[in-house]
């Protein structure tokens, strides 16, 4: 954590205002200790303020204030995504595990428990992970909302993969109350050689604060595919904190549709040699109320590791997109291969994309490339398509999908990717009318 400094009075005030209405949940001694330590981190850092370095582009006010603004529930009338895929479903309704709606949690190669149960157990492996990866993430950049999460979360999944998990696990979120203020904390541990695909779908709450800690041991593979939306009034801050062992793989892809404010953070530490991490996202936003923020921090702390960041945003009618991505290559992390691209396609002059790409490199034998672009629809390509008889709206959609394709290609499983492409096409079609 950064050296103590004098906190802005307003930060102190808003932090106290938020904390005064909250009490630390009970639990086993280790759980209470973890919560108290997290609370102390929040008090030291203070909750985010617009003057904080990584909150200049995204107003944290509604994420920080004591009561969340109301958000209407949304039913798009669609069947659940990936209904045709054999998967284990775990349902949370407004942040509360719903055993009746969920599948049986027993599955080969994995032990799945509920956080609220685990936190009451005197002896549990989660003791060494809960709040630990989150806390490590604070060392590079302050993430007070994740610390707040660790202090107050009462629900979530605690998942221990010991081998190849036979089917994907789908966390399905349902939003039923217009003022639900939800904190979920998932703790995921993959043993050596384990392999797990985790899916996340659905609107979770009016305000959603989610932290996911993922420990990926040597030779293990973690695959994460997430779809956020189509709820229109969502406010969400999510954080993934992961640490990768030797020759392990981490892949995370997020598709975001709608929502008022979504901030997705991802903090990755490559600590074992030859590890590979990919974090990618595609987002489509419509209207001046739409604000989407991807904030990524990747630390290379081992030899011959690869990291990829691929983010694409399509923004229209005054929507705002933010990308803040940093690659830190420590002195010993030779042979690092770091790649970062963030691009936006602005469909009108009112929309905006704010990008802050950063590289900090202390090793001398590395390849790191980064690029960030903002552009409009290519008029030449649009005319070419129209000259072949494709109507303007359809031609524009084709070009939008073509733009997003590079990010979608990061999804390994084609069945999952195709279903997401259908959703995207639906989103575009609805806006064409």
């Amino acid at each position: 954590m950064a050296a103590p400094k004098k906190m802005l009075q307003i930060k102190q005030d808003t932090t106290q205002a938020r904390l005064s209405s909250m009490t630390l949940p009970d639990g086993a001694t280790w759980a209470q200790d973890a919560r108290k330590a997290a609370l102390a981190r929040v008090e030291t850092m203070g909750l985010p303020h617009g003057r904080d370095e990584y909150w200049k582009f995204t107003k944290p006010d509604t994420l920080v204030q004591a009561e969340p603004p109301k958000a209407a529930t949304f039913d798009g009338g669609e069947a659940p995504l990936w209904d045709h895929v054999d998967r284990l479903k775990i349902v949370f309704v407004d942040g509360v595990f719903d055993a009746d709606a969920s599948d049986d949690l027993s599955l080969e190669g994995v032990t799945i428990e509920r956080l609220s149960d685990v936190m009451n157990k005197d002896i549990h492996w989660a003791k060494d992970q809960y709040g630990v990866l989150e806390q490590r993430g604070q060392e590079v950049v302050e993430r007070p909302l994740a610390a707040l999460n660790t202090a107050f979360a009462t629900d979530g999944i605690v998942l221990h993969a010991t081998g190849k998990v036979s089917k994907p696990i789908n966390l399905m979120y349902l939003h039923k109350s217009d003022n639900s203020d939800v904190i979920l904390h998932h703790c995921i541990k993959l043993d050596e050689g384990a392999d797990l695909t985790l899916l996340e779908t659905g609107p979770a709450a009016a305000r959603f604060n989610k932290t996911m800690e993922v420990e990926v041991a040597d030779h293990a593979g973690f695959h994460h595919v997430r779809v956020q939306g189509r709820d229109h009034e969502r406010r969400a801050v999510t954080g993934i904190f992961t640490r990768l062992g030797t020759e392990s793989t981490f892949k995370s892809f997020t598709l975001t549709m709608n929502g008022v404010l979504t901030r997705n953070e991802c903090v990755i530490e490559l600590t074992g040699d030859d590890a590979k991490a990919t974090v990618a996202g595609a987002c489509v936003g419509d209207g001046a109320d739409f604000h989407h923020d991807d904030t990524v921090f990747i630390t290379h702390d081992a030899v011959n590791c690869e990291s990829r960041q691929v983010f694409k945003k399509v923004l229209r009618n005054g929507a705002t997109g933010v990308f803040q991505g940093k690659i830190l290559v420590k002195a010993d992390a030779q042979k690092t291969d770091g790649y970062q691209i963030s691009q936006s396609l602005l469909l009108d002059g009112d929309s905006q994309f704010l990008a802050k790409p950063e590289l900090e490199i202390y090793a001398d034998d590395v390849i790191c490339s980064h690029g960030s672009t903002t552009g409009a629809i290519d008029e030449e390509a649009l005319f070419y398509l129209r000259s072949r008889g494709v109507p303007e709206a359809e031609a524009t959609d084709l070009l939008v999908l073509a733009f997003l394709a590079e990010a979608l290609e990061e999804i390994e499983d084609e069945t999952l990717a195709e279903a997401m492409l259908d959703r995207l096409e639906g989103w575009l079609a609805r806006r064409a009318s």
Partner: protein
Amino acid sequence: MLEIKNLHVKLEEEDKQILKGVNLTVEPGKVHAIMGPNGSGKSTLSYVLSGKEGYEVTEGSASLGGEELLDMEAEERAAAGLFLAFQYPVEIPGVGNMTFLRTAVNAQRKARGEDEMSAGEFLKVIRAKAKTLKIDADMLKRPVNVGFSGGEKKRNEILQMAMLEPKMCILDETDSGLDVDAMKLVSEGVNALRDEGRGFLVITHYQRLLDHIKPDVVHIMADGRIIKTGGPELALEVENNGYADILAEVA
């Protein structure tokens, strides 16, 4: 078929007149060629007819089969049967060539109130047409024109023309950037499409292309007007003597 009357066009962004009264009629089944020095307005004519933005028609008209073209959107002109083979075909990363063509074929059919082509039928037709143009399966799968050589791009234009079966084809300097073999292949593709109901307007700098695609009528364009019209012998005259004599003669 294509009827252009007294067409005056200026650039939208600057006050520069490019076309200064073009008159031209292409009858069904005929091939007309337009030749002319650089900057004479040949490419502008092709863009204005196909509906590219950035031009303002200040006077005159253009119609296709009796329908006023200049009031239509680009896609409506295409559905009405107009096709422009681009001088510089556009690369579209992320859109597969096959997807692009199928979308175009079906969009035009839909606009004309016809049934869409099924995936199977489309595949059968495109494979046969691609084969005669020596376009392999890989080129069909790749993104539109991305990484194509100059010759491949032009062959791809002709493939689109063959799939869309337009009434009126405009070829804008289709010979540019082609070697002798590629030119032959492209010309054969064009000639295969010649029939009684279809008109062609071939824009070129050189006689060479017209050896392969034999025109019925040759026009010489200079400074935004058609200054001379004749038979195929006119193209030979240009090849031998350049434009200087013709320009002097008209002046």
